[in-house]
Structure formats: C-alpha cells, structure tokens
C-alpha cells in the first residue's frame, strides 16, 4: 500500500539521474550529489554502482540511457485520495488551491473517519476572510523575502504597530493556532496570526536588521517512576523534544531540552504526571512545582 518501492528514495534518485543523463549531464560529481540528496547515507555504495555496472539496465557503461523521456509517473489512487482529503480540510482556504481534476475522487478520510480529541477549542478562525487575507500576505512576504506592516491587538488588549520581516509560520496542533516568527522588530518576535487586525506588504524604508538573539534553552531533568505505565506515557508525552533517557536503579532519568519561554507550560505538563514524575533539575524549575504544591496545600483537599 504505502510501503511500496514506487515511492522509494531509490526510485526518485534514479529518476533524477536518468533526467540528468538525458540532459547530457552525466558528470560523476553531479550524479553523486543526486544520490546524496535524494537517497540515504549509505546509498552511495550501491545506487550508482548498480546503474554503472548495468545491474539495473537503465544506463549503459558509456553513460547513455535507452530511456527517451524524462521519467514521470502518474499520481497513484492513494495519492489522489489523500489530496482530496486535504482539499476537504477547513484550513485549505488558507492556501487558495483548487484541483478540479480531483472532483470525482473519494477522499481517503473525512472528519467522520478521524477526530483529534484533545486539541484546544479556541483554535484560529481559519475560515474568516480577514484571517485568510493576513495569512496569505504573510506567506507571500516569506516567499519573496519582503517586509510587512502589521497592526495587532496584544494579549492585554493594547493596539500595537509592527514593521518586521516574517521568517516562517509556526503551527501548533495542540493549540490549533498559527504564529508568525519574525525578525527586524526588537520587541516582537512571535505574532499570533489571529491577533492581527491589519497586514500589508511593506515597501518603505527597509526594516532594521536585528541581530538574532539565540533562543534560550534549558535542560529539564525528570525522575520517572515506572508505575501505572508512567514511563511510556512520559516518554510519549515529551517525545517531540530533543531528549535522552537513562536507567538509574529502579527509576529513569529523562533529560529534555526545552525553550525557556515555554517554562510555564512545561511546569503544568510535569504536574500532570503526579508523583510518578519528579522534576529534579534545574532547581528553579523544581521550585516552581514546589510553589504550586504549597499553594495547593493551603487550598486543602
């Protein structure tokens, strides 16, 4: 089904190599680069030698090919069905894409077939016309290296005016929100698209180049007691971070690299595991948990 050689890195690399040979570019270095780019770390050992030795009868020893046209392959049914499922997703309006040729194709899945059950309910209004306009302006600016002028409402309800250069759009599946990562503005780095009230490409004076300050990361160390399947739950829950685990006696230590800006969120994520997961370091992180527990003790239960 999905695990099929027609989608494989090798087939893709070979298609690119044949196309190069057809263009008359069969320089060894060029072909080697294709293998390195489209296949895997060790493919260099097998892929080109298989072609050059005529094991795969697609390129002759004198670097000619009997293939006449640049290799192409039509879309498979499953690719069409997946694309159709994409076209039925509400976020598709952000991309201004129509594919009339897929009108008769059944989607691989619909919202009836799957549900993301734990995303937050205050996601972005992705079907709102103004929101779509802002999103597209930002995407256009990123693609063309342009600056933008943004008017937005801050978390505290204050009107803010920003000139900046958008670098990329970050999406959180849990929050169901898009954020613009920017440079050029010393006091705003991340902007929630939903907070934008006005957004235009900016052709005036160039936005000041601001030296990028490295994001501040910390390493959180958790001690995990493997009861009630806590180890698996914890490792899965924190799987999207750079992390390392080690066994220490009966327990496990998990070291997680996280962005300091996300500390409040991390504190409550650790709390959610109860006594099975203990924040060991850094000490100020541990203190934040202790502070919450002290407040809880005052509340009683």
């Amino acid at each position, binding site marked *: 089904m999905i695990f099929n050689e027609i989608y494989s890195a090798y087939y893709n690399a070979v298609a690119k190599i044949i196309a190069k040979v057809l263009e008359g570019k069969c320089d060894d270095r060029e072909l080697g680069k294709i293998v390195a780019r489209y296949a895997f770390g060790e493919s260099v050992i097998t892929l080109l030698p298989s072609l050059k030795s005529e094991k795969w009868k697609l390129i002759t020893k004198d670097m*000619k090919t009997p293939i006449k046209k640049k290799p192409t392959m039509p879309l498979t049914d499953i690719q069409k069905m997946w694309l159709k499922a994409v076209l039925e997703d509400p976020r598709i309006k952000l991309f201004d*894409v129509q594919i009339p040729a897929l009108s008769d194709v059944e989607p691989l899945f619909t919202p009836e077939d799957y549900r993301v059950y734990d995303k937050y309910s205050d996601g972005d209004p992705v079907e709102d016309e103004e929101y779509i306009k802002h999103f597209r302006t930002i995407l256009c600016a990123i693609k063309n290296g342009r600056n933008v002028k943004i008017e937005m409402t801050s978390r505290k309800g204050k009107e803010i005016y920003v000139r900046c250069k958008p670098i990329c759009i970050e999406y959180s599946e849990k929050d169901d929100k898009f954020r613009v990562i920017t440079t050029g503005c010393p006091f705003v780095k991340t902007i929630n698209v939903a907070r934008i009230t006005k957004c235009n490409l900016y052709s005036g004076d160039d936005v000041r180049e601001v030296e990028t300050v490295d994001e501040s990361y910390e390493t959180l160390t958790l001690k995990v007691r493997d009861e009630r399947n806590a180890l698996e739950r914890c490792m899965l829950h924190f799987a999207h971070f750079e992390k390392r685990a080690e066994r220490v006696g009966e327990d496990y230590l998990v070291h997680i690299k996280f962005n300091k800006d996300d500390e409040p969120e991390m504190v409550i994520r650790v709390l959610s595991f109860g006594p099975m997961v203990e924040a060991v370091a850094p000490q100020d992180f541990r203190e934040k948990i202790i502070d919450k527990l002290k407040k809880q003790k005052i509340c009683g239960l």
Partner: protein
Amino acid sequence: MYVLLKKFSDVEMLKILWYNVENTEEVNTVAAYSELIKNFEKIRNYMREFYIYGFKSRDEYDRKSARSYDDEKRRMESWLGDYMNFVRTPDGKNVFISIDSRVSKHNPFYRALKAKSFTDRDITLHFILFDILSSSDISLTLPEIIAGTEKYLSRFECQMEFDESTVRKKLKEYASLGIIILEKDGKKARYRRAEEVELPDITDLLNFYSEVLPCGVIGSFLLDKQEESESNFTFKHHYMTSAIDSNVLCALFLAMREKRIITAYNLSRHAEEATKVRLIPLRILISVQNGRQHLLAYQPEYNTIKTFRVDYLSEVTLEEVSPRFDELRQELHDMEPMMWGVTAKKKLHGEHNIQNVEFTIKIGDDEEYIIRRLEREKRVGQVIKVDDNTYRFVAKVYDTSEMIPWIRTFICRITNLEFSNKNFENQFKSDVEEMYRIYGIEEVEV
C-alpha cells in the same frame, strides 16, 4: 566501511564510490547487507524503541539476534543520520533517536517508508514501462509492450529478459495502484498510463499538510516530485512517531471508506504474542498531546465497541463489507459526549458505567485566564461560576482516570474534588500527598 564513510567529505566519498564501481566484487560483498528492507514491520518496533525510550543497551534487544539488531541500527543510521545518537553507560552503548520537532521541518521518519527493497528487474521494468507508455494516449497490448522492452534491453551487453507473466503481473500491480489503466479491446487487453492530474503549485500545501494530516507521508511522496524549495512552516507540539504506523492507518481508512470488516494482529500490553482480531473499524482518535493514535472498532466476538492502539496493530487485511457499519458508527457517535479520551462505553454488571467528575478551583482577581484555560481545554462537561473567584467543573464520563492528568494541571488552586468513582478520588488525593512528600513540603504558612 560505514564508520569510515561518515568521516569523509563529499569528494572522498565519491572516490570510494568509484573504487566500488571498478571493483564489482566489493560491491557485491557490501550488498549482502542492504539499507533497504522488504518488511516494514520488522523495523517498526526498533524505531519506536529507539525514539520513545532509547535507554536500552544492545543486549536488551533480545527478541532478535544481535546481528539483526546491528543491521536495523545501521539502517536507521543510514536513513536518519544526525538524528541518531548514542550514549555510553556501564551496561553498554545505548542508541536513541532524538528530534526537536520545532527545528525539523519534515518528519524524518518518512524516510523509513521510502526504503522498500526491490529487485534489479523491478526497477529496470518500472522505468522502461513508463517510457514505453510515456503518454496516456499510448495504448498497447502485452506483446507490444514486451517487444518494446526488448528494444530497450538490447542496448546492454548482458541481457535481461522479461517473460509475459512477469510483465503482466507488474502491469496488474500498477493497475491496482491506479497508475496504469487496463482496457479491454475485444478479447485483447490494452494498457496505458493513467491520465496526469494537472496540479497547480501545491508546495506550501504539501509542506503543511504532510506534517499535520493523518498519513502525511503520502504528502511527502508528492513533495518528492516537486521542485525543491525550503518549507515556510515549522511545527510546535508536533508528534512524529505516528509516521511509522502510516501503513496500518491507511488500511484502516480504506476499510472505513468501504465499510469493511478487517482482520489484523493486535499486540496487547499484557501479552507476549500478537493475537488475530476481527473488527469493524469505526473511527480513528488522534492525540496531539501524546501523539498516540487509537482505533475505535466494533469487535463482534465481544459484541462491543473497543479501543485499540494503532501502533499495536499490524497486518491489516480488508475483508467483506459490513451491513452494520452505519448503525455502529452512530452508536459510537452517541457515546462521544461522555468520552474524555479514547475509552468508549463500558458495562459494569450489565449497566452502563457513567462516572461523575466534579472539582472546584479558586482564582485571583487578575486570573481570568485560568477560566479561559478551563473553557478551551475541556473536551466534555461544563464550567460553572460559583462566585467571582470560584469556579466548578462538572462532567459525566466513561472513564474518570483519563481526566486525572488534566485535573492535576490545576494543582495550586483545587479547593474541592468529588468523583463518583471513589477509588480514583482517593488515589488523586493520596497522589497529591505523595507529591508533597517527594518535594519535601511539610507545613505551609498561610
């Protein structure tokens, strides 16, 4: 050789490559191990172990031979490169996969699904077939196609021949994938390539959806055919492990599309061996807070709708159409207002076991955001205002235990907690006491 390769520059690597080309024996020796695989199932478990846990040493992978462990590890190093790490411990070298999903714009696990092995004949025939059938206007019979392949192959010193059965089988396989169209012309079968779908520029769309929709690897396959460009998207809270379950998930979606029964192997947490199950798949539940995917399916054997972890399922086979699909899906739909997580209705002594959950929190004068948190994070239930500084959350659910991690996130402000399931209530309270002990909190001054 592999270890050496990692240390070489591009130029040096090419020198080694040409050494290999000129010394075919060497190529053959190396080929005894292949970075490509025939069966994905075999490596699926290793990938999960390395990514989710990553603290086991080589000796602990006792299910397979040491050679198998070494081969699988080497493959993953080849596919995932810098994402593979190791650490030395007194027990030996522990290999693990570590990925910061905010930095990686494309799911690296998709590469594993692009490592399917094939034969020399498969790849040769593939490119020749699509060159012969280079446009959907060209429609040929099997003998015409075979004659065509012979012309291509005559250019090579050492011959390769394709008999009728091989070519027919390949065309049939491609027809089942939808890339070749089989037409009947009287008694003769004619073959042509499927119509090309005219696609606008969908690079942004693919860069985004290949990471956020189920079976996103299909989007990644499509991206492979696009002109290269840097993705303009990054992802926060992005769980990537589900990629390695794409094959299973795709089969489940197809079964639901066609309202079919399936058989599959299910590995329960408490069993050593996977058991064969017969199910009517009804819905996939996906978590964006732990990355797990669950199948909710009717199991005729127990006459009930049950939950199965997709990562524990394998070898899914589509069977006959079920006439009960719509009725069962409606039954599941009716259950959802009482499902916090993935647990469906359970019967206890013949009765539906619905549990009441209630807790009260206090907020400060400037802590309205806590109420917004309650509202946006709750999946079922209601938030009731008691007074300006006190709010109560009430819900009826099938499984209280699924809510407990969320309720714990309000620790520091919970003033009252009542569950109809007293075991869970007592456990919650004793867990909080245990946390006081762990963090050394004794008396607190008010």
